[in-house]
């Protein structure tokens, strides 16, 4: 199944009802061709970065559609082109991007889990081999601080781990 994002901008001169009618007509058009409309996100009126067809604002709507081919998307685009009320549109295929994003997330979680395990076992060994080690803080809490965003923090902490280990080896 392919997933598409279809964004379109309606002229700001429409009333609430007209907007709803338009959105509903496009949704049913997509469904009529056999696609599944996963979500309808209406951003409402928004300032445009530059005037389009003399308008300075637009009503943004984004549809997420699932279908095995591009039929619904093609049909929607055909209608957008003809309509005078749709002043801009853009359709994009997103399934590959989402797949990649999920893979990265999984890799990140796997990496964090293995790092946690490595550090826990290493600290257990260090604690058992040497009695007093000065500032050995029971920083189990610090492990849970690791988030995907702190990639820098992870690498820096690894470097300091290595420095500590070489220092310990020097001491022996």
């Amino acid at each position, binding site marked *: 199944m392919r997933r598409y994002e279809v964004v379109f901008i309606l002229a700001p001169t429409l009333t609430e009802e007209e907007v709803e009618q338009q959105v509903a007509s496009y949704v049913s058009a997509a469904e009529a061709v056999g696609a599944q409309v996963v979500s309808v996100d209406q951003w409402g009126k928004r300032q445009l*970065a530059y005037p389009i067809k003399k308008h300075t604002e637009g009503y943004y709507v984004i549809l997420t559609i699932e279908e095995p081919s591009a039929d619904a998307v093609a049909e929607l685009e055909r209608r957008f082109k003809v309509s005078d009320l749709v002043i801009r549109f*853009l359709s994009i295929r997103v399934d590959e991007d989402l797949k990649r994003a999920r893979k990265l997330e999984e890799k990140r979680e796997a990496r964090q889990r293995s790092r946690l395990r490595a550090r826990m076992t290493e600290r257990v060994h260090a604690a058992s081999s040497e009695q007093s080690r000065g500032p050995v803080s029971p920083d189990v809490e610090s492990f849970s601080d690791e988030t995907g965003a*702190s990639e820098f923090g992870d690498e820096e902490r690894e470097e300091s781990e290595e420095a500590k280990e070489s220092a310990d080896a020097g001491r022996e």
Partner: protein
Amino acid sequence: MVRRRKKYCKSCASRTVIDYKDVKFLSQFITESGKIIPRRTSGNCAPCQRKITTAIKRARHLALLPFVRQ
């Protein structure tokens, strides 16, 4: 000078998906006049820079970002 001591790509670290709809994120990578910031200044890695560039261009098409600003 950039690219000393293992510089990391901040975009790679902070996001899994670079989205043309994320105006706040993308506006970090355009200048005052709306131009796209080059990689040697922004510090992005090549793949991120490419994705950011296409996202910016899409956002411009949808009037979420300007083409030019005075």
